[in-house]
């Protein structure tokens, strides 16, 4: 067997490795940490590492066979093996009709999240992903959550503004790609968009106001094809913009796309699908039925409402244990991101600093101002603990109620797929310790990365994916938690850390 010598902040170590694995897999196997947000899908280009005497490689796409020496970057790492690709559906290449008419047909898949937009450039001749880029969602300046953006539509011209910034952002990426990769607009024959219901409304310039008020009625949930020309998106003149179908106001196309993109192993019959974000959408998928809901956990794990909370940027405390903290980029700490928050709470609950019922008697100093990166104390406050209780209990209560609705118990759940970037970074043991995820499913948690984007790509590659999407929607039923008699009690009791 060939040998790998790994240089990292932890030191230098040498191991034998199996040359059938990608470099990323090898590194992860021996415990090295590489940021791989797409889960080794070859799509995001984030897992680049330095190979001595060779250069920088995208480690998930690089298959070494000889003795090598690898230097890991000092950046934020994902410590969980995310083998998303293993769980993604595979379909034969069968792109849309227009693809046959141009010389080198390309498709663009876009996952428009509330915070960021991810673009997947797909070669429709080979089926390969040529490039993945991402920008922050420009609607952010009109409000961090969808409800605030819907509120913005009450202003004169607000809706048009929200629509325009999205379309401008898409066109800007199209121009960039033309400049960088030489792909011409007329070769792009299809755009597939996966997003939540509100964003799909905004993209089409349809008033989303009814989505934010009971009874939360969307203007549309079905699969839509709109002429690119009509929206002013600069691709092939005859090209279409495909919007994936949604289920309800708060279980959107991103979830439908995500569920549809997963191909569980044969032995997995019933499973949970969870996106731990602000809206906290989740589903229990059984062979014949899908029960789904949005638990509205709130943005605590994105850093909002937390005194020193922040996104997973440089200087964010992203890991914590009795031995201390680790930050993104190994910078001096300037705040706490979601994964760090979970670790901190779990550690403090374990050592009794936070009681089972969530009492922290005084601010807990993680780094004092002499050691922090911004000259301020980095702390966890008693209120922060309450915010985490509100958020984690919403997720846990949703899980329990959905499983119950499906007539199942934890024993019947064969897997828990954690979708979304956050799922890749959180420490599952600590997530279970604080009661964000059920202890009962300990050995069945599988982070799967950005499934919403994976679904958009599948839709570009194959017309057959429409059938999968359709079946997901048909099998789904929306569980309205606000009408559920047990929700209040469940929600209150799941706030404990026991």
């Amino acid at each position, binding site marked *: 067997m060939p040998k790998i010598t790994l240089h990292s902040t932890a030191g230098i170590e040498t191991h034998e490795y199996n040359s059938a694995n990608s470099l990323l897999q090898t590194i992860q196997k021996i415990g090295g940490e590489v940021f791989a947000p797409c889960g080794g899908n070859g799509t995001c280009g984030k897992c680049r590492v330095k190979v001595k005497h060779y250069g920088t490689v995208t480690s998930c796409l690089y298959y070494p066979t000889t003795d090598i020496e690898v230097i890991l970057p000092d950046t934020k790492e994902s410590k969980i093996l995310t083998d998303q690709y293993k769980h993604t559906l595979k379909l034969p290449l069968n792109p849309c009709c227009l693809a046959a008419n141009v010389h080198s047909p390309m498709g663009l898949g876009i996952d428009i999240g509330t915070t960021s937009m991810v673009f997947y450039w797909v070669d429709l001749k080979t089926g390969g992903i040529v490039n993945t880029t991402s920008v922050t969602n420009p609607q952010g300046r009109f409000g961090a959550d969808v409800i*605030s953006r819907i509120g913005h539509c009450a202003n004169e011209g607000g809706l048009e503004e929200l629509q325009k910034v999205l379309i401008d952002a898409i066109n800007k990426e199209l121009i960039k790609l033309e400049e960088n990769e030489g792909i011409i607009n007329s070769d792009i024959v299809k755009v597939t968009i996966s997003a939540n219901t509100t964003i799909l409304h905004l993209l089409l310039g349809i008033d989303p106001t009814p989505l*934010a*008020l*009971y009874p939360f009625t969307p203007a549309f949930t079905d699969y839509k094809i709109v002429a690119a020309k009509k929206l002013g998106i600069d691709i092939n003149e005859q090209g279409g913009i495909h919007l994936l179908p949604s289920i309800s106001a708060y279980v959107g196309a991103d979830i439908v796309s995500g569920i549809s993109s997963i191909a569980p192993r044969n032995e997995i019959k019933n499973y949970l699908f969870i996106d731990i974000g602000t809206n906290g959408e989740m589903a229990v998928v059984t062979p014949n039925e899908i029960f789904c809901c949005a638990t509205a956990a709130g943005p605590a794990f994105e850093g909002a409402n937390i005194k020193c909370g922040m996104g997973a940027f440089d200087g964010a405390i992203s890991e914590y244990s009795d031995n201390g903290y680790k930050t993104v980029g190994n910078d001096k700490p300037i705040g706490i991101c979601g994964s760090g928050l979970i670790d901190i709470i779990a550690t403090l609950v374990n050592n009794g600093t936070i009681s089972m019922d969530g*009492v922290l008697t005084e601010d807990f100093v993680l780094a004092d101002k002499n050691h922090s990166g911004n000259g301020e104390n980095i702390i966890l406050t008693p*209120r922060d603990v309450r915010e985490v*209780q509100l958020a984690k209990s919403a997720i846990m209560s949703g899980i329990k109620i959905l499983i119950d609705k499906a007539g199942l118990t934890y024993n019947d759940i064969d897997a828990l797929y954690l979708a979304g970037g956050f799922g890749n970074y959180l420490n599952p043991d600590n997530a279970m310790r604080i009661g964000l995820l059920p202890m009962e499913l300990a050995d069945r948690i599988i982070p799967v990365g950005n499934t919403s984007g994976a679904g958009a790509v599948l839709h570009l590659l194959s017309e057959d994916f429409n059938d999968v999407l359709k079946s997901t929607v048909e099998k789904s039923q929306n569980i309205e938690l606000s009408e559920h008699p047990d929700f*209040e009690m469940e929600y209150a009791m799941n706030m*404990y850390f026991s």
Partner: protein
Amino acid sequence: MEELYSKLSDCIEFGKINKAAPFPPQMKDQDGADEITKQLLDAGASADDVLQKGLIIGMEKVGVKFRNNEVFVPQVLMSAKAMDAAMVYLKPLFAESGGSQKGTFIIGTVEGDLHDIGKNLVSMMVEGNGYKVIDLGTDVKAETFIKVADENPGAIVGLSALLTTTMGNQEAITKAIKAHNTNIKVAVGGAPVTQDFSDRIGADCYSADPQGIVEYMNGVFAK
């Protein structure tokens, strides 16, 4: 008797519903609010005394602890459940005697909004402090608030909203109530609501927690 009152106030403070209830663990197998209220009434205590010397004392402690962040939603909810168990016996007696409660509080979650956990906590805390509470539920329209306020002269109206979008309805409803009768006092609350917003829409009281509205009402009805 005195000992029973203090036991009852403990049951409210710590959320002990009845003997069978497992919560709170440290009061396992002890009598709860249900049993003790019955014992008090059997021993000849008046409904009013049970309220004043038992429930209100316990509820006030919970309210203050909640405000000071010593307890959180689950404990308050259990206290409320314990109070409900006592109220089962007291309510019919108050109805007979014409009600010795200090005043009336009408509360609801505003039109377009279904969030009611916070509203329920407020409603139970106010009730536990000796007020009659009329809970109109969720998705409540201005007309309904006005109609019920008219039927209960002197009542204070509480509006809860948890969505930034339904804060607009909170404003519209406050204005509609004030336009109908400026003397009706309106209190507003809910996570996104602030003192500033409350002032701007012309509400009479804003509080971030239930104890604040209780104190406000104690002030209004003491006069």
